[in-house]
């Protein structure tokens, strides 16, 4: 009889693990707490109800409903808690790869060996990953092939990108069409000595594995792709289903049952809140870093050193906005944005070492910058709604509002850029269970306690002016930067709930059970058949979008699991 694997979560990590295990003849069941917005998932081209609908997005169609399934956020243990939407990655079949615009950079060599190559940072728990860039590279290549990454490797800058993330072969598809605004800002970057390039992304530039090429509809980041030119987790999920895996949507796992060093079963609730038990020989946790820690804590998984949920990391997204008065940029067409720069991820970026020293740090980094993007009318209108409270408090509505909407200053004339900042692991940044708030099922929700450290604050302060500088160099008539992190230097970000959807850490990999929750292959240090396959396993966060690395890591790890138990 086939052995049974129980996979919690159908996002990028869980789907890769399910694919590997199903192909190795395991009897795999995938539990997805959210809805399934697809039909015929094992076919070449599934159907979907995702659409070009901004209101549907703003009503949290693919995300947990913030009233029914809230989280709690505190900036510190003493701070006033906020209850609602906190880092709401989609929770649906496909997980985080439903919301993304599928940017798929690799992490760098210095990310995997950060402690060895860059050294410690006081107050943070910098650690090496259990493998280096060379070892993960073949898994990156397999995932890039599987999900269909488009890009022109020969156009990537040698420094810093290819120096830190070398490539040995081309990507499966050429890059798609560049966006006009991304080109404009890229020119600005070049003028000030930065190194823009067409970013790799898992969006079809030609028909690929039965799915069509992207038609540039523009409803990309935050929207499920209506034509499946961009799939992510659905590619391995399809392979898993074709190899016999079963997918159960609307099934929330609430407890891992254990006996000694073994998990024996999972308890799960169906959509009617009926409790079921499913026994199995192997359990994979891949519900996303926050929900995976929540499940481990709900289950009371062994945690002798109080590590579970600690050292959770959130990329900080500081934003730049450039307004162009001479033309409309039609940023609403295409793949959200098409160009990046990697310069600010380099600890040796000119001036960065010196600024770190002044801040009392051995070094700091930020991360990549996404060049291009805008907001659609509902978000644009909300911006004017707030701005009019400042500009016209005695009548913050009316014809002025409509004139602003027609001017399109914050939509069609706007070019946004986003800096993805590396977040270091701190023991005080953690996920635990809220003592009072429960979800609609009556289950305690995750409570996030998070604040940036000196490294994040200093890096943000150093790179914020660069966002304005490169937008001005691109010809923006007005350019501003908006910080993400709260600090005394940026009081406007006080009380800000972190909104990034890049969530990592909490059950990191490592050799030492006193400093890590899972072993170098993602296996729980104290449970022989429980494995982590999502971003929770990251020991450090890097400064690039995490999904490709989540998938490559899950592929490396899961390949060893079947043989190990």
């Amino acid at each position: 009889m086939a052995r049974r694997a129980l996979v919690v979560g159908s996002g990028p990590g869980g789907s890769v693990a399910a694919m590997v295990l199903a192909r190795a003849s395991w009897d795999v069941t995938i539990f997805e707490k959210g809805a399934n917005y697809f039909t015929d998932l094992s076919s070449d081209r599934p159907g979907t109800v995702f659409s070009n609908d901004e209101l549907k997005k703003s009503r949290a169609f693919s995300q947990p409903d913030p009233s029914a399934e809230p989280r709690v956020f505190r900036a510190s243990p003493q701070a006033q808690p906020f209850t609602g939407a906190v880092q709401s990655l989609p929770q649906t079949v496909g997980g985080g790869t439903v919301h993304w615009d599928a940017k798929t950079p690799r992490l760098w060599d210095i990310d995997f060996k950060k402690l060895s190559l860059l050294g410690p940072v006081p107050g943070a728990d910098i650690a090496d990953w259990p493998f280096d860039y060379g070892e993960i590279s073949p898994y990156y290549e397999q995932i890039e092939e599987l999900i269909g990454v488009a890009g022109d490797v020969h156009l990537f800058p040698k420094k810093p990108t290819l120096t830190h993330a070398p490539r040995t072969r081309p990507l499966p598809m050429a890059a798609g069409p560049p966006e006009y605004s991304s080109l404009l800002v890229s020119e600005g970057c070049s003028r000030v000595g930065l190194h823009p390039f067409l970013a790799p992304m898992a969006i079809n530039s030609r028909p690929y594995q039965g799915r069509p090429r992207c038609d540039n509809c523009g409803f990309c980041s935050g929207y499920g792709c209506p034509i499946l030119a961009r799939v992510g987790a659905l590619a391995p999920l399809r392979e898993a289903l074709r190899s016999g895996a079963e997918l159960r949507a609307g099934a929330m796992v609430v407890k891992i049952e254990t006996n000694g060093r073994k998990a024996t079963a999972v308890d799960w609730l169906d959509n009617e809140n009926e409790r079921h038990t499913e026994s199995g020989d192997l359990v994979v946790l891949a519900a996303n870093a926050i929900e995976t820690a929540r499940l481990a804590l709900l289950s009371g998984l062994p945690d002798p050193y109080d590590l579970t949920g600690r050292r959770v990391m959130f990329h900080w997204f500081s934003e730049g906005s450039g307004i162009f008065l001479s033309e409309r940029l039609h940023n609403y067409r295409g793949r959200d944005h098409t160009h990046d720069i990697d310069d600010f991820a380099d600890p040796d970026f000119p001036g960065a070492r010196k600024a770190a020293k002044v801040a009392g740090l051995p070094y700091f980094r930020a991360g990549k910058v996404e060049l291009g993007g805008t907001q659609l009318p509902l978000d644009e209108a909300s911006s004017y709604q707030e701005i009019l409270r400042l500009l016209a408090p005695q009548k913050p509505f009316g014809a002025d509002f409509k004139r602003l909407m027609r001017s399109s200053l914050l939509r069609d004339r706007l070019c946004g850029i986003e800096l993805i900042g590396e977040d270091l692991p701190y023991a005080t940044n953690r996920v635990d269970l809220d003592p009072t708030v429960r979800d609609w099922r009556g289950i305690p929700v995750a409570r996030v306690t998070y604040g940036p450290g000196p490294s994040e604050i200093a890096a943000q302060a150093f790179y914020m002016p660069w966002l304005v500088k490169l937008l001005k160099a691109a010809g923006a008539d007005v350019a501003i930067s908006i910080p993400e992190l709260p600090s005394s230097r940026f009081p406007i970000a006080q009380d800000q709930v972190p909104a990034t959807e890049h969530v990592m850490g909490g059950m990191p990999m490592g050799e030492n059970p006193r400093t890590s929750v899972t072993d170098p292959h993602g296996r729980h240090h104290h449970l022989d058949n429980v494995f982590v396959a999502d971003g929770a396993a990251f020991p450090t966060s890097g400064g690039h979008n995490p999904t490709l690395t989540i998938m490559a890591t899950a592929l490396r790890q899961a390949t060893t699991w079947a043989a190990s138990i």
Partner: protein
Amino acid sequence: MAVFHRRQVLQAAGFAGLAVLFPPELLAACSTASSPTADGAKGQSFLVLDAHEARVVEEATSRLIPGPDDDPSEAGHPGAREANVTRYIDTMLGALELSPPRIFAGGPFSNRSGWPVDDMAKFLALTPAQVSGWTLRLAGFRARYRAGIKTLDRMAGGDFIAASREKMDEILAQDPGGFMTLLFTHAIEGMYSAPEYGGNAGLAGWHEISWPGDRQPRGYSEDAVSLSDGPDAYVPKGIGAQLLQLLRTSP
């Protein structure tokens, strides 16, 4: 990327928070005022709102997003009244009384961009979690509409509809109980969301702002993505100039 996405997560964030950085005299200098005249309200049947409530919502939202009959400077520019924002709001408040609930329009395509049928007209069944969340949310909204409309009436001396436009503006600007902000948020949704949700009648909201709306399955050509559409200068004046000035003075 939503450039100002954090606002959705915490309403106090983003530009509202920028206020602390601007000198008060600048904010004072930024302020404007205006005043119009006209009248409106029609007899329709609604799911949740009674006839009077519907008229108050219509008149109030027409102050927030005025059309040609509400503000002479908006000649040729439809507003909340023309886009049927009141119908949108009533449909939202009563969304769970319809089957399937009018919360999430279907997909993948409408019939506006080269597809023969309107998939978005078929609304989607909700998950129990969504039913739970929206039951709470809509109960809260209904209570706030009932109370908010009463407050507007009271502040107008008994009947908001009978008040002058200047008086209506003055009352709304006080944002009693946050009701103007809530109404404005919903009026924006009704004005600029897909017409399947009940507003944006005749695509008035989208045409008004040169917004092409949903674009599948036609999409855009590669040239439309990569090339400039050509010069289209915006000459800063009025409120737009004030907005740019505000941003220029941000740190």
